[in-house]
């Protein structure tokens, strides 16, 4: 058992650190959920991509460096330590790209991955519907076959689509077999958000910014070339990203270690004014270290050929609650300054509040942990309960 890095890994770490030190903007960029901030974040993505830092773990021919899992974690640690901008292309890179690699045709891989890597095309996810949240498989948006044109016609409504306000393309599930129920008969579609029949309506989030949106589909035509995986196989295809979103990919330990270190720095500056916050500082730092070490265990397991599986749910509950606790402690240390808008601590706190909700609520995650890891019996469905009575 050891946590030592190889000479090559240490060299990679030094290279990344030097580049970030020289290139990370001195002042934080404006929020990516404003028109001005969006453009600047896209520029930053292009700058990263020019050095193959936007998607380090991808193959070289689509813009990556073929970095190992260990190198990916190192990159993320350095990225957050440097205080580099949030990744506007994150949803495409972490949620969609793994599916395109696994299920996309060579044509789709060539068409979509390079522009995702450069940040030229930003992707938004379209999972939830007004009546399908935690029970995602109950979704009602439809895809109707159009043989004459060689494709499908989409109708319905998606909601809580992060980044959809300014994004270029969307991805999501539609019911392509009208006689199907739940997980069967769903198809995975890719669609440009400026297609005829699509209306995007921004939704202001807690802090007033349009970080997500509703998407309305009114007879939107999508050609067969933009179906991901086989028609009707959408649920299985989509679930191969659910583990990514919940698990290792979306939330690297670097993010929390950097935030915890900043919290300790804040404690050194303001702790004498708010000494009562001391235990919160300690617990946040310990939590971030637990997450860092846990991740190295996960990396070891994955490198040995293991799979993330239901363990991603353990990860997700932990980091989402750690993120909130860490920022709450930061706000405590700010005292009366805490409620000021547009401070890094308040921005981070508001963002953290969404963590226990998105990517499968923490209640759904706890069900998964209880049933698939602890092996507890499944909760009877509503229909089964009625039948029992």
């Amino acid at each position: 058992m050891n946590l030592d890095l190889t000479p090559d890994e240490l060299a990679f770490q030094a290279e990344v650190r030097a580049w970030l030190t020289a290139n990370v903007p001195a002042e934080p960029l404006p929020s990516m959920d404003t028109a001005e901030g969006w453009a600047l974040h896209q520029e930053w993505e292009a700058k990263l991509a020019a050095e193959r830092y936007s998607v380090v773990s991808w193959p070289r021919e689509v813009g990556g460096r073929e970095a190992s899992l260990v190198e990916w974690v190192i990159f993320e640690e350095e990225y957050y330590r440097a205080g580099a901008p949030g990744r506007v292309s994150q949803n495409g890179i972490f949620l969609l790209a793994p599916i395109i690699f696994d299920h996309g045709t060579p044509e789709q891989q060539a068409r979509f991955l390079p522009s995702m890597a450069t940040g030229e095309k930003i992707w938004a996810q379209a999972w939830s519907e007004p009546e399908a949240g935690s029970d995602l498989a109950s979704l009602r948006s439809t895809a109707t076959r159009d043989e004459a044109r060689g494709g499908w016609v989409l109708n319905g409504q998606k909601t809580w689509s992060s980044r959809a306000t300014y994004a270029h393309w969307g991805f999501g599930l539609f019911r392509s077999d009208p006689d199907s129920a739940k997980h069967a008969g769903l198809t995975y579609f890719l669609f440009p958000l400026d297609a005829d029949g699509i209306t995007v309506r921004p939704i202001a989030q807690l802090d007033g910014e349009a970080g997500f949106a509703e998407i309305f589909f009114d007879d939107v035509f999508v050609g067969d070339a933009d179906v991901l995986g086989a028609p009707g196989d959408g649920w299985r295809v989509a679930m191969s990203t659910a583990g990514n979103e919940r698990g290792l990919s979306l939330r690297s330990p670097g993010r929390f270690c950097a935030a915890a270190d900043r919290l300790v720095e804040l404690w050194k500056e303001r702790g004498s004014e708010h000494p009562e916050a001391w235990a919160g500082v300690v617990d946040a730092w310990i939590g971030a270290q637990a997450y860092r070490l846990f991740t190295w265990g996960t990396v070891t397991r994955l490198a040995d050929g293991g799979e993330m599986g239901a363990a991603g749910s353990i990860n997700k509950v932990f980091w989402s609650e750690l993120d909130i606790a860490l920022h709450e402690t930061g706000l405590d240390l700010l005292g009366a300054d805490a409620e000021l808008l547009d401070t890094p601590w308040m921005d981070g706190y508001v963002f953290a509040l969404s963590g226990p909700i998105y990517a499968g609520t923490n209640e759904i995650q706890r069900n998964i942990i209880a049933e698939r890891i602890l092996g507890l019996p499944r909760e009877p469905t509503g229909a089964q309960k009625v039948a029992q009575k």
Partner: protein
Amino acid sequence: MKFELTDEQVGFASALTALMRSGDSVAVARAWASGDTAPGLALWSRLADQGVTALVAPEDEGGLGGTLVDLAVAFEVLGHELAVGPWIESAALAPQVEGQLVTAAVPGISRYAADAQVARLLSGTPGATHASIDTTRTLTLVEGAAGCDSAAVDRAVLACAAELLGAGERVLADSVAYVKQRKQFGREIGSYQAIKHQLADVRIALDFARPLVFGAALGEVPVSAAKVYVSDAAYLAARTGLQVHGAIGYTAEFDLSLWLNRIRALVTAWGTPAYHRGRVLTHLTSTALVD
């Protein structure tokens, strides 16, 4: 970078577990609690023969020269199988190459020595004896105890943390087994979300406690960080385990109580969580964290 136990360490843990189960460690613990230490001392000898007390003693002093990871592996098993006797003192604080039982009160941490009725007191004068909430532990007041070097105390804290991890895992496993068979309102209580979510939280807490224990063994984090977090996690396991068992869990007769009381005792033994949080804070404020 390989953050997992070696096959050899996994095998060592399995061998210790098998040895303790074949020796009926729970019956041994109950006998020990009622004053019959003979079966416990016999089991002690068998574990000592496996090298537990000599594990981290240097090879040139007749020890096995093992690592702190090896020590944590052993203590997780001792916690899981409810070992009795002054193991933390005799295998971690002051490793005994000949397998003797020793105990100590450590100034600044505790004025009591555990199990002094069967062990040699390393320093000071024994005084009055008190019962612990953990009936397998007897506490003796010690006057004039000498200080211990900080590396020795850190080893003891790490061993205590690993023992708590094992005890917490045991309570979770027994609680999961119980809620799968106990039925109320016509179905297993483990099918209710109110039960599931509590046990899921214990699984999460223990899964993040484990890397801190082994990370501390590697020197990646202070042992105090591991003690704080694993104390919270094991205590959550104990509270939740008691709650999902209901009244049967509240009885002395049911074996769960042995682990609940062990956890309660070890949460404050070898430094309370508040004491160790203070040590972590000192570490943080005296270290440059941001390059």
